[in-house]
């Protein structure tokens, strides 16, 4: 594997973890989140801060995951208070608040971010494989959830919360669990990212990134694990396949979002599913 391929594989792996984790929140449990990139950022910043203090990789990853998950549960608590249609704006706002905070903190590097992050202690190819292993684990975990009673319960919560309550489902708890798991995994992606990039900037985790992640979920088919897998791989490779496409990347994302939602709201997975 050449260095270029290794780098490509790493990016795909990280994007997979991001998209699959958002899929748990939005696709499985039906909670719209427009601030997912902020948790990616939280994990990255936590890991980077500790890495520069000398902490080893397993510790930084764990810390990034835990930090993102903890704040994620707090955000989940806000989701319980807010009307369903307002959740999108609230999660978007949380993204802006978290990022706005980080941008102003000198000890986190402010606008210039954190640079000089140490390497992972593995060569590029081995590290890429580590990322792939994590992505595979998240994929397997997503499938597990989907096939378990948790997936069944999430489906009910996404369909009709009040009806779910009348069959004994503690809707609040399940929403919090979805947020906790999804955001924690986004934090893991952040922790993995820092060793790959060696430098992190606040702009990497902004609203546009949240939308990019959402695009991967939506186009794959919100809720469909394999659909999200496919769309993430394709959308990540797109700018690589065509240099020209790179400048039009956002335009293509936007156009795809519109077209897919207009003609097949169930995404790619929806196209393949037989009609109910």
């Amino acid at each position: 594997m050449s260095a270029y391929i290794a780098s490509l594989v790493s990016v795909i792996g990280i994007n997979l973890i991001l998209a699959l984790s958002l899929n748990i929140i939005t696709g499985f449990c039906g909670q719209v989140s427009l601030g997912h990139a902020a948790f990616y950022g939280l994990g990255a910043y936590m890991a980077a801060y500790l890495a520069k203090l000398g902490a080893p990789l397993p510790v930084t990853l764990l810390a990034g995951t835990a930090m993102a998950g903890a704040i994620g549960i707090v955000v989940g608590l806000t989701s319980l208070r807010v009307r369903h249609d307002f959740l999108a704006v609230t999660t978007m706002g949380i993204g802006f608040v978290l990022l706005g905070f980080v941008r102003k903190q000198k000890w986190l590097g402010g606008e210039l971010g954190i640079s000089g992050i140490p390497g992972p202690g593995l060569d590029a190819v081995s590290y890429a494989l580590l990322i792939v292993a994590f992505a595979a684990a998240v994929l397997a975990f997503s499938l597990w959830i989907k096939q378990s009673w948790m997936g069944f319960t999430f489906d009910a919560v996404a369909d009709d919360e009040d009806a779910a309550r009348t069959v004994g489902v503690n809707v609040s708890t399940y929403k919090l669990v979805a947020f906790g798991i999804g955001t924690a995994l986004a934090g893991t992606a952040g922790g993995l990212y820092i060793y790959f990039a060696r430098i992190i900037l606040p702009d990497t985790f902004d609203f546009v990134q949240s939308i990019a992640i959402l695009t991967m979920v939506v186009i794959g088919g919100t809720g469909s694990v394999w659909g999200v897998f496919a769309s993430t791989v394709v959308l990540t490779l797109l700018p690589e396949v065509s240099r020209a496409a790179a400048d039009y990347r956002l335009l293509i994302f936007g156009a795809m979002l519109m077209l897919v939602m207009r003609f097949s709201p169930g995404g790619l997975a929806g196209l393949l599913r037989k009609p109910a």
Partner: protein
Amino acid sequence: MNALAEIDDLHVSFGGVAAANGVSFTVERSELLALIGANGAGKTTALRMVAGILRPDRGRVLFDDRDVTALPAHARVRLGLGFTHQIVRPFYSFSTIENVMLAAGYARTASPWKAITSRSRMAARDKARAILERFGLGAQAERSPRALPLGQRKRLEVARAIALDPKLLLLDEPLAGLSSAEATTMADLIRTLSGQGITVVLVEHNLGEVLRVADRLVVLDAGKVMAQGAPSDVMARDDVRQAYTGVV
């Protein structure tokens, strides 16, 4: 306490209007109790407070010797309370049998940990199928609730509640919107359930069927209980007839 449930002095207001103004009654074990009254008397409001969907401003709800007033709806379900909505709410993205399966598997949805560690849906499917057969919905198992006519959707709503193995079943206008033949069938079904030992409280407008199947009536008027007792005794009272029809 011998009664299964005790509703004690419930008060609730919406925007200054008292929908419940001191509702008190008991529910005896295994009985089929009907809450009746004119429109706006507060019947559905009272039922929703017993179910835990609506929080009272004042008063208590006791169930099986426990004060459940502060418990949310889903927790009351776990203690043995089933509820059906006036306007049916099946999970439209599930099939008919899946609707009942989720309820049948209530042990597995009790906590996220239990849920994530349980995979097999076999037992729930078998239990759900049996219930659907009892309710005459066996042939509809794989169909979407969207494809079912109202009468069957209402039966599905009750079937789903039964899958929770409830001690007390709260039914909000189960006969509303049904033709007279369907209403009779449904009323008979409810009577059968009651005969099997489940305590049933229903809110209903369809007096004909109610008088036929209920053991006891509680009449609400302007948010208060105005009369209770055996159907024939209650309906013979002048004040009850006046409240209903405005004529003595």
